[in-house]
């Protein structure tokens, strides 16, 4: 190991033994450069004494340009310089003081006031003379006949490309919704909606309103029924308990297991015996089967014979059934047609509002026009009519909802409310 290290070290440093090795492995560039400098100086100046300090060096009094630039940067702005100049003379106050102003003539108004007054008078005179016409923002448009024939303009073929053409309405604009076509704009009211209706018409309308309400009530009842808790569930629970108990009873009790198993084997044996039938038994069974088949056949024939007697009745029944089916189908078709004519019940997210039937009850009917209390709201009527005709999508007012529920606190001072009040009133009473 030591030998290797030494070998390494030896390798790093080449030997300088001998003149040749020494000359090869040293670096004398520095020395050589210095000597070269001296020699070059000698060449220039000749062999003389070395120079003095003041001949070799100078003291810089001018300064570095970089530093100069930096100083220039730090200079304050010209504006600031100007503003900083403060003259010795004081500035004049903007406002003219009474003391400073000297009226040309005492008692009479100054020139300034006279000028001002003239100006105002002039302005007033102008205003009253010609009232400034306010720009008519209402844009009186109804002063011409919209449907009068427009004057035919000559078409210049050279200008056609340059003129802006009016956009042509697409064919879909002609498609009016079915509801709009089939519904009347203003629906004529029922005869029973008169303020003084005849008995029959009023009754008819009441019946109509009644049926609508009845349907609603029934629907609500049905819903309640479906949502209500059923008594059968209690019984079911009871049953389940029993069943579970029964099942559990069998598995838990181990004592009976062996007995049960013993019974089981016996039952199995019995079954096996029964399976081996005798020939007689088989024959008997076959006979019984044949007889049964015969009997059934006879019964069947008897039934058919009976039915022949009832043929007419059966035909009637069938006819009735067909008639009913036809009725149903015609009703269905009529219903579908009516629905198609009525328009869409739902456009978008919400359903079209339905107009409630407006009718006054028997006691609400008034005798005279003066005592009439109007029923129903025309705003709602118009709005629902617009929705029914599918002109706009049904809208539901957006309820403002807060993300948090407002919490109620009681201030500490409120706790002393009664005491304070009592004190206050005591004071006033005393007075």
């Amino acid at each position, binding site marked *: 190991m030591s030998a290797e290290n030494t070998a390494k070290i030896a390798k790093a440093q080449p030997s300088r033994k001998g003149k040749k090795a020494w000359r090869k492995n040293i670096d004398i560039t520095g020395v050589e450069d210095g000597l070269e400098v001296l020699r070059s100086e000698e060449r220039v100046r000749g062999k003389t004494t070395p120079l003095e300090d003041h001949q070799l060096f100078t003291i810089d009094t001018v300064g570095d340009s970089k530093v100069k630039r930096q100083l220039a940067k730090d200079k304050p702005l010209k504006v600031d310089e100007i503003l900083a100049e403060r003259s010795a003379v004081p500035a004049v106050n903007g406002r003219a003081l009474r003391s400073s102003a000297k009226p040309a003539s005492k008692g009479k108004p100054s020139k300034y006031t006279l000028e001002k007054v003239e100006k105002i008078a002039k302005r007033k005179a102008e205003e009253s003379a010609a009232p400034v016409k306010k720009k008519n923002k209402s844009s009186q448009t109804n002063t011409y006949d919209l449907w009068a024939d427009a004057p035919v303009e000559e078409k210049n073929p050279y200008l056609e490309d340059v003129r802006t053409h009016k956009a042509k309405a*697409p064919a879909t604009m002609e498609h009016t919704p079915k509801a709009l076509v089939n519904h009347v*704009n203003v629906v*004529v009211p029922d005869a029973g909606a008169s303020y003084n209706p005849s008995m029959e*018409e009023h009754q008819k309308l009441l019946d109509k309103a009644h049926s609508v309400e009845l349907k609603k009530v029934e629907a609500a009842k049905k819903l309640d029924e479906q949502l209500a808790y059923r008594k059968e569930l209690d019984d079911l629970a009871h049953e389940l308990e029993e069943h579970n108990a029964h099942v559990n009873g069998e598995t838990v009790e181990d004592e009976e297991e062996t007995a049960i198993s013993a019974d089981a084997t016996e039952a199995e044996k019995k079954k096996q015996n029964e399976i081996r039938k005798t020939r007689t038994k088989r024959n008997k069974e076959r006979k019984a089967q044949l007889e049964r088949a015969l009997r059934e056949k006879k019964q069947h024939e008897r039934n058919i014979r009976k039915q022949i007697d009832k043929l007419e009745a059966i035909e009637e029944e069938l006819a009735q059934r067909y008639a009913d089916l036809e009725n149903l189908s015609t009703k269905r078709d009529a219903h579908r047609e009516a629905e198609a004519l009525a328009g869409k019940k739902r456009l978008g997210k919400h359903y079209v509002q339905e107009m409630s039937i407006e009718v006054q009850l028997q006691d609400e009917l008034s005798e005279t026009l003066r005592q009439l209390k109007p*029923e129903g709201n025309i705003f709602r009527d118009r709005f629902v009519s617009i929705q029914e005709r599918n002109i706009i999508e049904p*809208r539901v007012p957006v309820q403002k909802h807060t993300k948090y529920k407002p919490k109620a606190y009681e201030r500490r001072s409120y706790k002393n409310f009664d005491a304070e009040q009592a004190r206050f009133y005591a004071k006033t009473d005393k007075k």
Partner: protein
Amino acid sequence: MGKINKKGVKGAAANFITRQRALNKLQISLADFRRLCILKGIYPRDPKNKKKANKGSTAPATFYYIKDIQYLLHEPLLQKFRDYKAFAKKLNRVLHKGEYSTAKSLEENTKPVYNLDHIVKERYPSFIDALRDLDDALSMLFLFSKMPADNKIKAKAVADCQKLIAEFQAYVMKAKCLRKVFFSIKGIYYQAEIKGQTITWIVPYQFSQAVPTDVDFRVMLTFLEFYTTLTGFVNYRLYNELNIAYPPNLSEMAGFDAGDAMLTKTEATAEDAVAALDEFKSAGGEEDKDTVTLRQIQDASNEVSNLQQLFANCVFFISRETPRYALEFMIRSCGGQVSWDPSVGENPPFAENDERITHQISDRPTVSNRVLGRAYVQPQWIADCINARRILRSKTYEPGQVLPPHLSPFVEAKEGDYVPGSAIDSDAEEEEEEEVVAEDKEDDKEDVYESELKAEAAGVTFSESTNAETKPTASKKSTKKRSAAEVEEEEQKEMATVMMTNKQRKLYQKMQHGKQKKVAEVEKLQRKKAALKPKKK
């Protein structure tokens, strides 16, 4: 394999667009989009297959035609709305800073103004189309004419409403085209006939209308805006046809006095001719199945001209408690003269104690200080007269009396319907009727006695004879009335029944059965009425 079709290029997906996408395309707010759709007449649609139209989603959405939305892009109103939005921003900023004078000048000078003329012209290319939608417009205008001005409803809008309805009512009174009136519990329904179009509109009673909370007011105001423009143009055209300058100087909303002065003689004749023409056309339109007989046309036109001069010889005075706005309109549309109490309105033509007054309309339980020569009636009398197209007996409509029912004129009595005729008797015919009835009673009694004697002799029981009586008499009458044409008709019908299938025949029989039931009912009611009449006397 055929051409590969890309999804979403054809069919429902390419024809419909949801509301949100439309908003993104048009770059306006939802409220402005709604307004634009209402004004332009772009309606929400319902595609057959919503899933395809909405790119696989079945969430409820509102659909529009893509072509409609693309058409909207060319609408100049769109730019106006955007300008208004920018203006509103500036105004808001200035107001919040507190610079009120700047705000005022901004509003006066830079507020963008738009008008809807081109939209009205687009949607209603002809005048008749505009008349078809006039009923909706009128109802809306009447509704808003009595609203108090507040934040949302501008006073100017309400004033415009009032002006337009006053002008329209003045026109109807001049042209005398009111045909039907109905006092319902919701409001007063009028039906007028203008240029062959029947226009039905509703007028609310003048109580303060409660505005329901579930009605979207912005939608109503947009409609109001559009309908105001429409009605303005329609009024202009209507007045042009009567050769009256538009806008007319109506002294007061319900006064209409100056309107009278405008009408000169020549104009009056022109207007009559116009009215007559209208009647002819409308009468011709009523007949649908059978040939239009000249007689029928003449009858119809006579009826209408009667209606127009119904109150020509009557002078009315309206009491304070009755609705003047309705009654004045109705009376003057039928040629009558009317006046009112000075506390109710300005410039009554004549005073309450004028001698010319023939009828006084009052709604009180009793009338004190009755004037001889005046008939005192309740307001329903006028409406019933107009609906019946003749002057009815005013005794049944006295104040304090129980009125006969106010029947709806919109329910047209079909063939064979029972028409309750309790109030149809007019004053003039009353006396004649009484005489006729007296005569008939006598004849009937003799006949009845004779037939009863015969029946007894024959051995027929009383009930059978009464049943038999009605039937043969009816059939006898029917045989007498049968003419050759009718016989032929019946034969044709019989032939047709033979050719029918079982199903059709059964349907026909059902129909006939229903008809017969109705006829029997009507006869029963008429018999009852006949029975009551002699009792009354």
